[in-house]
């Protein structure tokens, strides 16, 4: 159970970052950390003791494969994460060009 708790602590570190950081780049980093922890959690859920990677090699007798479904889900989620990060980066760089700062509070006050 320790791994799951550690994994969830990683999630909470990201959550803490999203709530308390004011820098746009730091917020993006916190979101990616949350994302990573969920990927790891899914793979930890799908692991089976003494399992082998889910690739069929002829000649294996009664193999135990780890669960391929969480792996497929994580593959999907990784690409979604790449998409999210790049969109956030595009907006962050654009905001920096307009305001010359990454401070979200200053951006809010300048906007009026």
């Amino acid at each position: 159970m320790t791994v799951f708790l550690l994994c969830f602590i990683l999630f909470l570190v990201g959550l803490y970052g999203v709530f308390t950081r004011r820098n746009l780049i730091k917020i993006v980093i916190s979101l990616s950390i949350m994302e990573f922890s969920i990927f790891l959690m899914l793979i930890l859920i799908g692991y089976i003791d003494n399992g082998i990677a889910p690739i069929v090699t002829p000649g294996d007798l009664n193999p135990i494969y780890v669960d391929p479904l969480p792996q497929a889900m994580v593959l999907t989620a990784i690409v979604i994460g790449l998409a999210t990060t790049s969109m956030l980066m595009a907006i962050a760089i654009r905001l920096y060009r307009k305001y010359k700062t990454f401070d979200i509070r200053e951006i809010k006050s300048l906007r009026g």
Partner: protein
Amino acid sequence: MNNLLPIFVAVPLITGFLVMILGKFIRNLHKYFTSISMLLLLILSVYAFINLGDQTLVYVVGGWKPVSNFPIAIYLVLDGFSVILLCIISLIGFIAAFYSISYISRYTAENHYYALFCLMVAGMNGVVLSGDLFNIFVFLELSVMASYALVAFGIGKEELEASFKYQVLGGLASFLILLAVSLIYWKTKTLNIADIREVLKAGYSKTFYIFIQILLLSGFGLKAAIVPFHAWLPDAHSSAPSPISAMLSGVLIKAAGIYVIIRLFFNMFEISEEIAIVITTLGTISMVLGVLLAIGHWDIKRLLAYHSISQMGYVILSLGIGMILISRGKSPGIAALAIGGGLFHLINHAVFKGLLFLNAGSIEYTIGTRNLKEMGGLSAFMPFTSSSSFVASMSISGVPPFNGFFSKLIIIIAAVEAKFYFLGFLAVFASIITLASFLKFQRYAFSNSSRNNKHAGISEVPFPMILSMVLLGFLCIALSVLAFPGIRDLVLGPAINILIHIDAYSSIISGM
């Protein structure tokens, strides 16, 4: 009929890709092509609505049959509830696309706009049709990803800042949902909604159950902007281009938020009284707080955005009352009335809020400002905009004989009959403040002829914008026929049945 289901996702996707490929070579293709494809979707969804009746269609993607009675492939499900959402999406989608023909011509990169629009519609159709938890997450991400880009389409300072806020809170919501999905997979080893219900029946730990319910409620609540999670909505909805505001307020928060909450809490979880009371309370707070926050604002689109929170509160309140009554197991007639009122208000809100945002867009298009203080006397120059906006304002504030009156009346009657007198009183109170706020809008924007000379020489907006506003204004009056019980049963009956007979959904799908 059954083969129709994938078409609802495939058509907007193909339209979006073709707009990007051909739009580079053929001028002005994208404008008309998108509208035509949305019209096709509208016709298909109305056809599906008429032919569906009380049945539930299940489509197995890939054709993989269930193995030892549990589903292995992704299921697409069309029942009475999702077909209503499908019709709203294509209706508002068609009207917003048609309206955009004139409105978006002032922006650059129009083909990107139309491609993103189609992708957003495809994502919402995917969410509404899906019967698989992870699939809902994927298509939800698709629709909100397109909406992030569309909110910032004008790339001004406000748009970018609103879009950043929207993306951060939307990303947070997505991760909460994904965490809940992974916990559910851990427990049940399956992703199909009906199958999850079957597995959870066998027993669960109470804390686990409450934890995933809280995670899902806060995740989808963030997408639906229920009150403690509403911070992004006023910014995002007010800075997007107006047709997109109409789509976001009219459809996206329903398809991505309310629809999934209702689907999961009625058809996946066992309804418990505690969570029903939580949902009702959240709905009540949204209803009252949204309208109180709205009165002080002079920016029209921001005012309308706050009213979206309030009106969504009505829907959640009435469905929450329905949930409480179902969980107590008595008076199913009143529960059906409450749920029917909520769904009726859901449809009405899409129509009149879409229309109000289109009106705001027309005003912005002609005089270039959104500030109410700088307007005045517009009714003399813009007869279609002012009359349709009058219809919509009266409708949202619940004045007879417009549709908003009847849905609010049904909700209040249901609240009173269920002996929640205080909730009924609050609903009336919120409705009165809404009326006051929209009288202010009407007075400052359209009448007030003393400042008439300031806007001399402006003229009515182009034809596509007029036509879409008039169509929606007509619908505002026409939807009042749903007030008659016979017609309401015919239209909303299948949806109410699938929600109120809480085991029907899962038994139809697992019984295949």
